[in-house]
């Protein structure tokens, strides 16, 4: 509606809202700022470099997987299988590392990404060529991949002492000042940002998401794009799996159980539209940051750990409702 009716006779208030709506990240940035100020007043220990490094460390994996998830959601799909992909790849990689203690770390990372990409391309194949709706396909592989974790490990798990030090340092080492994991997440974000905004394929992802038929008429091979986003989502999950096993120094059968909904939450809170075509990398990073800050702040403010999940859920709802409210106000003012 707004796109067809450009605003006329804008009051200054509506100009502000109009600007807000155009930079969808502004709403969530405001939300984060309010939260940071409020929490800092309650407990100044929140606004310290150490604490923020802690938050960044906690959200790195989430950010990587959420970026993959975002590409999928932009095409009007969803990838529920990421958590099981992480679980399966983490188990396989950890086991390979346990058997080959002096394996090169680069090789391990590449192996994880390749395994993730294979699992992701399986999703892509049944969605594009089998015409299975994404939510069904990935719901199916969510339980298939999780089942394979149990089958693979026979119910056993990998402990910290079974993994070499070099592997554990992959995520936590700080040769560049920040923990490696944070740097990897930043690099991934930059690559995805460049890919989505400045490459032909990246723009085609948005085209397919906002109007699949028009995209096809414009000569975009829709199926290839959709296949690609699931492959990339799997690839991101595979990378995250290696980091997960390295950070928590273990691989269990229930690794990352339920994580898929967190990645969707980070994307959606970051302004990615579930109906496709809309979503930015900075938005998703802010979404992941908001989730990380909420988790951290609840502990710092001293909310009982048992109530933290409830507060987290409530804040996610609030963020989504506020976003919707701002958008609808803008639409009413400008219509």
């Amino acid at each position, binding site marked *: 509606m707004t796109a067809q009716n450009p605003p006329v006779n804008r009051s200054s208030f509506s100009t502000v809202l109009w600007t807000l709506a155009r930079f969808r990240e502004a709403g969530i940035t405001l939300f984060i700022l309010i939260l940071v100020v409020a929490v800092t007043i309650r407990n100044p220990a929140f606004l310290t470099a150490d604490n923020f490094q802690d938050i960044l460390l906690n959200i790195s994996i989430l950010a990587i997987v959420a970026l993959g998830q975002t590409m999928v959601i932009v095409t009007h799909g*969803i990838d529920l299988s990421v958590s099981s992909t992480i679980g399966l790849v983490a188990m*396989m990689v950890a*086991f*390979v590392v346990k*058997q080959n203690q002096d394996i090169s770390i680069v090789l391990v990372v590449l192996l994880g990404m390749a*395994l993730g990409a*294979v699992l992701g*391309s*399986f999703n892509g*194949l*049944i969605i594009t060529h*089998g*015409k*299975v*709706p994404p*939510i*069904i*396909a990935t*719901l*199916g*592989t*969510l*339980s*298939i991949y*999780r*089942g*394979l*974790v*149990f*089958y*693979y*490990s*026979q*119910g*056993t798990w990998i402990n910290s002492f079974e993994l070499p030090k070099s592997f554990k340092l992959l995520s936590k080492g700080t040769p560049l000042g920040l923990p490696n994991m944070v740097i990897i997440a930043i690099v991934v974000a930059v690559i995805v940002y460049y890919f989505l905004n400045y490459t032909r394929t990246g723009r085609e992802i948005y085209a397919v998401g906002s109007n699949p038929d028009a995209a096809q008429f414009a000569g975009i091979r829709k199926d290839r794009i959709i296949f690609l986003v699931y492959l990339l989502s799997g690839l991101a999950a595979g990378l995250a799996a290696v980091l997960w096993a390295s950070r928590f120094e273990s691989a269990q*059968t229930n690794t990352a*159980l*339920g994580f898929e*909904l967190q990645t*969707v*939450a980070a994307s*959606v809170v970051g302004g990615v539209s*579930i*109906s496709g075509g809309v979503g930015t990398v900075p938005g998703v990073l802010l979404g992941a940051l908001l989730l990380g800050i909420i988790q951290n702040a609840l502990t710092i403010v001293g909310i*009982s750990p*048992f*109530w*933290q*999940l*409830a*507060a*987290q*859920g*409530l804040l*996610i*709802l609030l963020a*989504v*409702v506020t976003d*919707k409210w701002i958008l609808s106000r803008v639409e009413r003012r400008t219509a």
Partner: protein
Amino acid sequence: MTQSSALVEGKSQTLINEAAPRQPFLARFQRWEWILVGLIILVVILNTRLSPYFLNALNLSRTSSDFMEIGIMMLPMVFIIITGNIDLSVASNMGMSASLMGLLHNMGVNIWLAALAGLALGTLGGMLNGYLVARVKLPSLVVTLGTYAFYRGIAYGFLGDQAARDYPAAFTYLGQGRVLGTLIPFSVVLFLVLAVGFGLVLHRTAFGRYLYAIGNNENATIYSGVPVAKIKLILFTLSGFMAALAGLILAARFGSTRPDIGTGLELSVITAAVLGGVEINGGNGTMLGAALSLLLIGLMRFGMGLLNIQGQVQGVAIGLLLILSILLPNLARNLSVRNLKFKRQPVAVAILFLAVFVLFFIFFYWSRAPIVAAS
């Protein structure tokens, strides 16, 4: 307002009844149900051959009550999915309601009062979902993803690391009891009665027709004068109530409540509905199909359990069945349309993919060999 909307409803009821293409509709969808019946017979025959304990009335009676909570939550889920929405929060809502009941029970409140409070809270939770979907107009996937965390969080808030137990026998009858003189569990009877009720509402009332209409074309339905927002509010509220009811039965069956009760069941509920032929994008599906798929999943899991296959590994079979149930009909249609023309490129791509997946599984088994050797 109420009078005029009643008038509109009355009018559109006759319209919809006249327009309903009943015969082709039923003819088309009974096919999937017959396939499910065939699969059920196949599973029964296979399992009877593989294990002597399969056709044992006592075993079947015990295992049937394991699936009734999923079934009870599945009934309103079928409604919701037919309208093109989804409710991811059901299992969390169930945990929240059961935890409130457990908390009140621990505080010494009469168990039936506590159960009533649980039902009320679950209904409220459903209403909040409905309000956000119908009035605030947020996508149901987003809303129920948020309440999925919110309600489970409240469950932890209520009980923390505590558990509620020592429920009176009159209450545990809900989950453990059998109908007098038979081996049929009470919860199965309750589910069947509810399923028939929900089935009648879906297939024999104007309300049920509206659900299909919303799923097929929501805007057209709104312009036809159907109170779509109100219907959505009712559906999600109903889903909350049924989730709370399922929570009580699960608590009664376990004889205790922990805040993580029923975690992850939402995916089982959706799997059962979709395998039953309910179209995930809305507009299609029958209650009979959903009920049959619940039976199929129950029998498959029971049979695999008897063969000593771990619960999570059973998930591989259920997941494959879910995907194949949609993949195979699609592929069959594709093949007949294309007249099986030979094209070089698709074949090359197919071989490439096959090679990649084969390589994956070679690696899978090769790297797994030491684990098998150790155990």
